[in-house]
């Protein structure tokens, strides 16, 4: 199956810092999503971004499908940004998602 690799696995920041999370995937995809998992285990949809660039407040994402990678940018990080960030891809319309291992982000005040 398709391989999804996320980096870095762990990231520790001070409040106010910026960060970039990366997701590489091994094959063509028709969907790529970024999620934030909160401490209660709930997956929050951040971006649905099979290609191009999107922004939502302090977060933005870019997917370069031809080069098989996506980046998630977090600016002016806050303690509430802490948690695990997952990248997931889909190779068939309406099919299952393949998840990376996630990036554990910790933001200190």
């Amino acid at each position, binding site marked *: 199956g398709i391989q999804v690799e996320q980096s870095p696995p762990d990231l520790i920041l001070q409040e106010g810092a910026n960060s970039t999370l990366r997701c590489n995937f091994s094959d063509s995809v028709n*969907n790529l999503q970024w999620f934030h998992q909160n401490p*209660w*285990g709930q*997956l929050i*949809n951040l971006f649905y971004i099979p290609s191009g660039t999107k922004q939502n407040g302090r977060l933005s994402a870019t997917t370069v499908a031809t080069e098989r990678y996506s980046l998630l940018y977090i600016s002016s990080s806050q303690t509430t940004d802490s948690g695990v960030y*997952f990248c997931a891809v*889909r190779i068939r319309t309406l099919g299952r*998602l393949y*998840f*990376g291992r996630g990036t554990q982000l910790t933001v200190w005040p």
Partner: protein
Amino acid sequence: SAVISQKPSRDICQRGTSLTIQCQVDSQVTMMFWYRQQPGQSLTLIATANQGSEATYESGFVIDKFPISRPNLTFSTLTVSNMSPEDSSIYLCSAPRGQGTEAFFGQGTRLTVV
């Protein structure tokens, strides 16, 4: 955005018992998915649930252990049978929604088996 309601949100169960998790979607969807997330790990697909047919299980998961029902296009259940402490995980249901087929998840069920 889609609304997927999953319950229970958490439970503590005795080994040897079974727990049924329910997932309700606010509109009709063709496919629903059940994932497991073991402590500190990523999400692993258990099975795909299609309405009116048997669920399709991934390697390492069997129907006797994780029976799934899909009685209509908005509802599905996953049962974790004959539980052991190794079944302690977060279980999540998911469905693609909207024209762009963005995937949404229920709130998750945090299961602890003692």
